[in-house]
């Protein structure tokens, strides 16, 4: 197989598949163990300085925001991050926790570019930035989920997105055509927010599943936060809805409104007031610090955060959600 071209970006997290197999054999229990714990415990046990970490789906949509805030609260630093995100990664960037970035998209969608990203990247405070497409980064998770070292795809070819990635172009040994090979991406830690899970970690998601399927199978540690904790019987009644079976999961954190200020389909709408507050605050370092002081450092946990937001607004967000109509 002839390599025609190589991206010049750093391979921030080289895949080690045999080690991953060993890990999955030794460190992931098949026993039904109660994994319910607090955010503080989950983050302090499984997230560590310098780890390679990813979140799913993204800031405004079914995102483990309470876990993201806890990572900031505990000041986990030098993070290497799979950069597909909105407000969750913005918080980490704003708090100065990110060192290396595999980036596909960090921005604020309707609210434009991310001020936090701009400050941290343009100043060089983030030392490494490697480019990928959205499909690209997810296919990297998919390769890891398949347990193989790389995956051939037909995107990224011919572009600078390829040039500044760590992908390779090869001549396909079967067709002779050029294809792009993406290296598997095995995360040290993944954070995923779901609609319901049992105490062991069997987790179900309603609506689109984003890249939860791939990411949950492409990580060494997986922290699930969930709107509801349900009895295993409820899972067993609808097993086809389980995206994440329990043995993939290391911690289950019960977090109603865990995606706030993002939405949770069929549960609550996104909180435009809160999102706008972050968009404005994040424009300056001072504003960022004030926001973090109030909403992250100034509260001990997710429960206190929710009290700060207030039951009235949360109730309103639940009422606004259109549900299954």
């Amino acid at each position, binding site marked *: 197989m002839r390599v025609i071209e190589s991206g010049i970006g750093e391979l921030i997290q080289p895949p080690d598949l045999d080690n991953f197999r060993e890990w999955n054999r030794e460190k992931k229990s098949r026993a039904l163990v109660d994994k319910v714990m607090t955010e503080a415990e989950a983050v302090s046990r499984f997230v560590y300085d310098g780890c390679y970490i990813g979140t799913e789906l993204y800031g405004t949509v079914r995102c483990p925001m309470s876990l993201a805030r806890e990572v900031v609260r505990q000041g986990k630093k030098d993070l290497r991050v799979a950069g597909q995100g909105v407000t969750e990664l913005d918080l980490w960037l704003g708090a100065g926790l990110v060192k290396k970035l595999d980036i596909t998209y*960090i921005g604020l969608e309707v609210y434009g570019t991310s001020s936090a990203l701009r400050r941290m990247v343009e100043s060089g405070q983030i030392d490494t930035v490697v480019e990928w497409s959205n499909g690209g980064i997810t296919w990297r998770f998919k390769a890891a989920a398949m347990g193989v070292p790389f995956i051939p795809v037909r995107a990224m070819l011919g572009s600078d997105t390829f040039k500044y990635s760590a992908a390779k172009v090869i001549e396909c040994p079967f067709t002779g055509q050029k294809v792009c090979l993406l290296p598997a991406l095995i995360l040290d830690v993944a954070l995923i927010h779901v609609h319901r899970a049992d105490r062991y970690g069997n987790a179900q998601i309603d609506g689109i599943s984003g890249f939860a399927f791939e990411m949950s199978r492409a990580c060494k540690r997986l922290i699930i936060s969930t709107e509801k904790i349900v009895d295993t019987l409820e899972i067993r009644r609808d097993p086809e809805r389980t995206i994440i079976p329990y043995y993939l999961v290391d911690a289950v954190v019960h977090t109603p409104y865990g995606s706030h200020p993002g939405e949770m389909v069929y549960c609550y709408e996104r909180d435009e007031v809160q999102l706008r507050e972050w968009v404005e605050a994040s424009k300056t370092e001072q504003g960022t610090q004030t926001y973090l002081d109030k909403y992250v450092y100034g509260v001990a946990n997710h429960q206190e955060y929710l009290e700060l937001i207030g039951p009235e607004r949360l109730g309103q967000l639940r009422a606004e959600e259109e549900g299954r109509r």
Partner: protein
Amino acid sequence: MSEAEYNPTELLICIAARQMPDSVTAFIGTGIPMLAASLAQKMHAPHVVSVFEFGGTGAQLVRLPRAVGESRTFYRGVAASGICDIMETATRGFIDFGFLGGAQIDPHGNLNSTIIGPQHHPPQVRLPGSGGGNDVGSLCWRTIIIMRHDRRRFVPQVDFVTTPGYLDGPGAREEAGLPPGTGPYRVVSTLALMDFEPESKRMRLLSTHPGVTVEQVIENTGFELVIPKEVGRNGPPTAEELHLLREEIDPEGFYI
């Protein structure tokens, strides 16, 4: 603002919406493409199948999605899957149209949404990055690019090819390994509608917006546009289009 008056964004949305035939699949990104697809659905193309990158397929775009993963992207849709399914569906040749935007575009329709300036890291200005843009531009059959029209955006060479257009010209996409028969189809700007000359794969003026002259388009383009003998005129937004946009599609005024 009365129904007869309109702003540049509303015009842009209307022209973009009119490019979309009925009963096609269209990959929709954040922002104006969402409004254009929704408008097309309500006007002439009720069976446009909207496809959103995180899994929403065939939604009824009753309310404006504000994010490519949010619930409105699969509201009364036909499927709610995930990003791999969508990107692989595009790879297999099922997506007819894709919408794109960017900070810069060059004569061959290459797009930049990554950095501004000569150096990748640290850059002068950091933009969000590819997102699904590169996938859409690589894998959909025809892409429609939506841009504000000025010389800072229409440049001889983009600072970074985030998303491939026709790269260096005819044959370059195929040479790079991209699927044959794909590439930029239209550019809808705040001044005009453009396509790409088949022989040179260079951007060509098709028609200008109401009140815009060919000279104005040339003046606001930082490279030499192909100007055909006949340049058409785009009709202004109709009262019906404006009513739908303002009252039904974006009543919260997110974009217009």
